């Protein structure tokens, strides 16, 4: 780890628009502090481009503290750089050496069409969420934290799944471009808790149906998603989704005249 500022060679994917042909363009950025985050390093490069009057590099970012799931780069061929439990914004330049060449691309998946440069449209993830990633009961104001007691192991398991920030790294790292880890985390989280359990079968059916209708692939248990996930979400949640879905497909039905009355 050096405290000396570095010079880096970057190969960055430039693409003018969704339909345009993209290509890797060489850039050189000097005076990079090892304390900078990866995104700050690109900010520095963008400042240089502005001064030269060139088009800046478009990239997604928001909280820059690893919780919003907005940053979405493929660094040296790996989503979020492939560091364990780390989003792109939490990758720091101290991980690189003076003179390194870094290849920066957008997330690569059919489900995520490129908007511009490093920005992709991850709306497909929202579509899956809209299909059932919530509970529809009106819960009113936030209840007292201990009003509904949930055994610790189950609460922990649900929390592990709830850690998903919907960044889409699982899709981008999957050799099949599948959205199973993301969807598994959502279905798993809600199926584990009493508030979500009531609608679990319908949720599983609807979310899987929408997932399949989009450009996502199928799971072949490579587990590359689990290795890449910045929140360390396990493919155990995919397994839970698989059984939730199977159970729902064979047992779920809706009563036509539920409710009764006169």
């Amino acid at each position, binding site marked *: 780890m050096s405290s000396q500022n570095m010079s880096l060679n970057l190969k960055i994917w430039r693409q003018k628009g969704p339909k345009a042909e993209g290509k890797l363009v060489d850039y050189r950025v000097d005076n990079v502090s090892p304390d900078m985050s990866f995104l700050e390093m690109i900010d520095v490069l963008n400042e240089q481009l502005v001064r030269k009057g060139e088009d800046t590099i478009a990239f997604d970012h928001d909280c820059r503290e690893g919780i919003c799931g907005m940053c979405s780069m493929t660094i040296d061929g790996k989503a979020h750089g492939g560091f364990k439990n780390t989003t792109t914004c939490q990758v720091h330049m101290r991980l690189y050496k003076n003179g390194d060449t870094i290849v920066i691309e957008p997330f690569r998946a059919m489900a995520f069409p490129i908007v511009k440069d490093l920005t992709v449209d991850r709306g497909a993830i929202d579509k899956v969420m809209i299909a059932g990633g919530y509970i529809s009961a009106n819960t009113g104001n936030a209840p007292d934290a201990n009003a509904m007691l949930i055994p610790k192991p189950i609460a922990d398991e649900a929390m592990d799944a709830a850690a998903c920030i919907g960044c889409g790294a699982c899709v981008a790292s999957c050799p099949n471009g599948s959205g199973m880890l993301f969807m598994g985390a959502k279905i798993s989280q809600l199926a584990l808790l009493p508030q979500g359990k009531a609608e679990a079968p319908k949720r599983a059916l609807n979310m899987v149906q929408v997932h399949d209708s989009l450009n996502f692939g199928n799971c072949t248990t490579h587990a590359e998603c689990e*290795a890449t996930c910045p929140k360390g979400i396990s493919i155990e949640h995919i397994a839970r989704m*698989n059984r939730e879905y199977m159970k729902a497909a064979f047992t779920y039905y809706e009563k036509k005249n539920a409710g009764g009355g006169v």
Partner: protein
Amino acid sequence: MVTSAVNHYFRSSIGRKQLVAVTGLLLCGFLVSHLTGNLLLLVSSDAFNLYAHKLASLGGVLYLIEGVLTFIFLLHMGLAIKLTSENIQSRGKYEMKKKTGRGTTFMSQTMPFTGLMLLVFLILHLKSLKFGTMYEVTIDGIVMRDLTRTTIEYFASVGNTVWYVVAMVAAALHTAHGFSSAFQSLGWNHPKYYRNVKYLGYLYAVTIAGGFAFLSVWCHMKGA
């Protein structure tokens, strides 16, 4: 809603991969019985012939079993090809992804290739052995097919034996990933025992493919 949910199951990503998983595990079971039968070659030439004769004399039942087996195999293969082609589509145009080294394995990445290799192997295997040269032998006054001779003659060739062993390596790679992956697809993953399911898959792959490969070499040594 009842019917539509089940209908969707058989068209969905999860439903189809669960069918691939179930058929794959059934085929794994078939390989166990196949290898057990083949091991009779080590007992004696007559023992293997008697076993084959016993099977052949099942008549209609055997055809039924063969029909079911063919159906399982075609379902496994057909769905796997369909799912793989969809996956290639979803991968997108640019294949610049590198692996983290903590996820994919050589076995998981080569599943479509080892699968296709096993298909080619299966066709040639049926052609040269099941529908291979017919010899007759009389054991205890009963005339039956001398399958032992067909087998020994086939493996007398170095080329045939090498190809067989190569195909068994493919079978080992295919089942080493497929076995545990099938359990995952069916939802049987557990923080404690899934690791053991993985090891069981490796053990299965090495034992079964190793057993077949050993027998082919043994037949080669006997025939050459």
